[in-house]
């Protein structure tokens, strides 16, 4: 079996089917009340274009297999009314189509959703959980990472801005900077005044 890896990787991040309205996406995420696991699996399966019971069961299993923080974010993401965004749905459909072309076989919806939407949850879930989704910065980080993974654009924003904003919003970076500042302050305090 020959797999076009570059095409597959590109397919997973370059949908280019339109621009999402970022403030609306952030608002939806902030308003989302996490769904229970079964409801989240049904919603995510529907977003991927397949409400079949087997797909729902598979997604429920994948969500349940996540560690607590990404799992809670997945349940919040599922509740964020993403089905109201034509761009998100179109991007998922296009990614599935392109991945199938690159692999040479149809891609199960559970695999598609896992490799895109749940991947975002795994990434951000390494640093925070759904209890923080109401914070503007965390909701913006999640929204921007979602846009990045789905290969979408953002209205009134240059394409290269998104990656820079994601890096700036990354709480790991802020934690590193705060730790370095604390160490520096402690060392300075231990030195005699000049």
């Amino acid at each position, binding site marked *: *079996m*020959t*797999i*076009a*890896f*570059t095409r*597959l*990787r590109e397919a*997973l991040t370059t949908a280019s089917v339109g621009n999402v309205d970022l403030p609306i996406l952030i608002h939806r995420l902030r308003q989302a009340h996490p769904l229970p696991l079964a409801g989240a699996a049904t919603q995510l399966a529907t977003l991927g274009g397949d409400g079949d019971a*087997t797909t729902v*069961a*598979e997604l429920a*299993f*994948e969500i349940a*297999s996540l560690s607590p923080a990404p799992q809670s974010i997945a349940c919040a993401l599922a509740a964020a009314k993403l089905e109201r965004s034509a761009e998100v749905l179109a991007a998922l459909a296009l990614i599935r189509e392109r*991945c*199938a072309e690159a*692999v040479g*076989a*149809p*891609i*199960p919806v*559970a*695999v*598609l959703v*896992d*490799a895109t939407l749940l*991947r975002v949850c*795994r990434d951000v879930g*390494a640093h925070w959980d759904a209890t923080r989704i109401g914070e503007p910065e965390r909701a913006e980080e999640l929204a921007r990472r979602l846009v990045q993974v789905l290969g979408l654009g953002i209205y009134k924003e240059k394409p290269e801005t998104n990656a820079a904003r994601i890096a700036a919003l990354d709480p790991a970076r802020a934690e590193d900077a705060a*730790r*370095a500042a604390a*160490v*520096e302050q402690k*060392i*300075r305090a231990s*030195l005699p005044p*000049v």
Partner: protein
Amino acid sequence: MSAAFPIEEAVAALARAAAASPTAPEGDAARHLTIARALDTLAAHGLSITPERFVVHAAVVDHASSSLDLLVAVLAESERCATAVIDRAKELAAAAHGLSTEAALAHAARAVLIEPATAIARYLPRDVVTLNDFRREELARAWMAAIEVPIECQGKLEAKERSARTLARLDYRKIRADEERLAIERKVLAEHAEAVREKQRIELEALASAQRE
């Protein structure tokens, strides 16, 4: 319970793999080879995965920073290491009630290979793993901790607590934090020394000026 993972054998296999491929796999062909080798090795041990369920997740892995190719090499080269990991995958697949066999096997294969490689790469990048045996041992132990497989060290089954302590001692994050702290310390001390020198220069100039007057 899974067979124990022979740590010395794994570290030696990782060293050979790192020597044979000092840089990360680049390009389509190299990444395809890694995944094909993974699928072949899993299949040889009775875990046949439908490729499309595995490759989409494998494509998402950052092959440059993850040690996925090195982990796959360990499975391909060491029968005992492969047995321990694939036994664990079979346990995970058997516990996946309600899933089709195809989905359960793919889930298990990802859980023992792709997910640990991705998670470990966040703090222990591939280029660091190639540096020395301490980092290779950390990679092997972190991998086993992630998939909950016991470790065999010097022919003896290691207690879980001991494995956890050894892994904590090896933690590259602590080493990196120490290096960063030392760099900050050097910078602050250099700035302080410069400030002291500058003050002394000003005082000497003021003294010389006062003496001239």
